[in-house]
């Protein structure tokens, strides 16, 4: 589904991604771990099409087509979704209206008509119940004044509404309390299928206890320096990154 080939990206001439290779197939869950500042969020943003980053080398293929030149919305229409590490506050736009606009614009791009209002309401009701989101939230301005955990839960609500093929969850677990973590994880598990894929960026094992990864990658100074199975995450949790650093420097 996603194939990243020797990807280099920089911001203001500062190289951040320095040759990433990654292949993700439908039905798989990949975890990306790595120390602060290693480039995990940058990778997520580059996949989603953030224009601040310049791809200087390499390519990103989504379903065998390069998406390097596509606008963020075009990638979204193809089925790429990024759950932000720091979701942006958008004063004056309610969660519901934002969702309606996002869904109908996506449908428009796929040559479908607007989703009928009652169907939309039903879907909003189902997905917000699944994530135990209070109805009050839906009429509030998007992310404005939301607590850290509320923002993250709202991101997963949007994921559930948009049903993308590839979901990138950037530190969705940070800020969530124990109950919320369980709710969000079970939400993601319900959405997961053999036709879609998930990338989980995280620092901790706890989310991976609920959403079990098929592969774990370690990112270090803009490269993926180690990949393994789910046990790699446990090893990192136990030992930290020093041994990785030593391996890389050796």
């Amino acid at each position, binding site marked *: 589904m996603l194939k990243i080939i020797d990807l280099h990206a920089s911001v203001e001439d500062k190289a951040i991604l320095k040759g990433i290779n990654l292949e993700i197939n439908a039905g798989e869950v990949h975890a990306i771990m790595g120390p602060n500042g290693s480039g995990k969020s940058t990778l997520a943003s580059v996949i989603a099409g953030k224009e601040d980053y310049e791809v200087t080398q390499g390519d990103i293929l989504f379903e065998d087509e390069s998406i390097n030149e596509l606008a963020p919305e075009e990638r979204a229409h193809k089925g790429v979704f990024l759950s932000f590490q720091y979701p*942006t506050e958008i004063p004056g736009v*309610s969660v519901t209206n934002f969702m309606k606009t996002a869904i109908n614009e996506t449908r428009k791009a796929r040559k479908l008509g607007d989703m009928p209002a009652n169907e939309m309401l039903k879907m909003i009701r189902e997905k917000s119940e699944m994530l135990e989101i209070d109805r009050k939230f839906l009429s509030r301005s998007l992310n404005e004044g939301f607590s850290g955990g509320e923002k993250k839960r709202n991101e997963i609500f949007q994921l559930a509404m948009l049903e993308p093929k590839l979901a990138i969850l950037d530190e969705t677990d940070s800020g969530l309390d124990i109950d919320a973590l369980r709710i969000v994880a079970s939400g993601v598990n319900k959405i997961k299928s053999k036709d879609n894929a998930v990338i989980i960026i995280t620092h901790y094992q706890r989310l991976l206890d609920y959403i079990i990864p098929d592969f774990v990658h370690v990112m270090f100074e803009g490269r993926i320096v180690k990949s393994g199975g789910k046990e790699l995450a446990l090893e990192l949790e136990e030992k930290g990154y020093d041994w990785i650093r030593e391996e890389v420097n050796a």
Partner: protein
Amino acid sequence: MELKEKLIASFMAFENLVDIDSPVHDVRSEAIKEFETKGFPSRRDEAWKYTSLNSILKHDYSVFPKSESHIDYNDIKKYFIHDIDTYKIVFIDGKYSSHLSETTHDGVDICLMSSALSKPKYRPIIENYFNKVAAKDGLTSLNTAFSQEGAYIHIPKNKSVAKPIQIIHFSTGNEAALMLQPRNLIVVDENSHVQIVERHQSLTENPVLTNSVTEIFADKRAIVDYYKIQNDNENASLIDSTFINQKQESCATVHTFSFGGKLTRNNLNFYQNGERIDSTLKGATIIGNRQHVDHNTLVHHIEPNCESHQDYKGIFDDHATGVFNGKVLVNREAQKTNAFQANNNILIGDKASINTKPQLEIFADDVKCSHGCTIGQLDESAMFYMRSRGIPEKEAKALLMYAFSNNVLSSVKIPEIKQRITNIIAKKLGVNIGFDL
């Protein structure tokens, strides 16, 4: 001949055309002298530093329309708030159009200035109120000199007018270039309530210059709710001078929506003559190309325990330019005044600009006054966030701009007006999305 000379020369002919015996004959004669002395403002005047009238004064305007024009309602229906029942006072090229209007004398007077000026039964009101709050600057004096037609609204005490009143001026382009001088008088007596919508609409590409003056008197506990919808085509310019005199416990709100026009200048003046008065001024400006919108406001706090709220939002694209000059004057006697002013702007076009200048002159010591102005760009991280959820750039931009100006819309009390403004904004921004925020 320069426009000024042409206007002065036309005055005699104008006075002969209208009624010389009118009680306002002397007022007009005084006013033309005033205009002769002061003329049009120039950028040397502090209040006009950022707005030049040169480009709009150069046309050879007809000062009176030569012929009467007829327009079919169906062709202009879209400019009316037509989905609710309203009173309508409609003018075509400055002349009253009875077939498009719906006036009344049933307990209230909602009719036209020309008849109020000529009929004896209106004389007491005209003598007490006409030209009593309007300023004596050049442009206002010019309007006063040529004042003949416009809306005349008198709401006697304890009356709540059942439906909103629309005042609409159309220009047809039958004249190569037309200058209009509409004059409105609105007198709202004690405990009464009125809602008014005003619009100026040119129907062709010929240049139109409207120099409009409105006087509003809100007596004790009166409520006046006024909406100005400015979405004219880009060959039409508007200078609007509105003067509001408020008595104790009255509440007056003016919303100004400026989306169209070549040059728009709004002089909005509130005078608080009484205690516990509330004055609210709200404005949303969304313009592009080479459009220019200038808001020049004054709130004069004369007596204690009053409030004023000003909230102006502006979005400027392309080469558009904006001016906000907000003056709050608090007299020494006006203790316990609460005066708030905010002017927030977003510049989208690289060549767009805004000049914003709050002016607070406070002579009382026990007051709460605040003002703030900001000039920013569209929030890039919000743009990426929205686009990453599938909302295309243009729509994301539109949604952010709409959200930005939503504060101004949220206090609109007539849902159909809110809907209309929303549609205008969507059209202006070239998107087809629901803004039901």
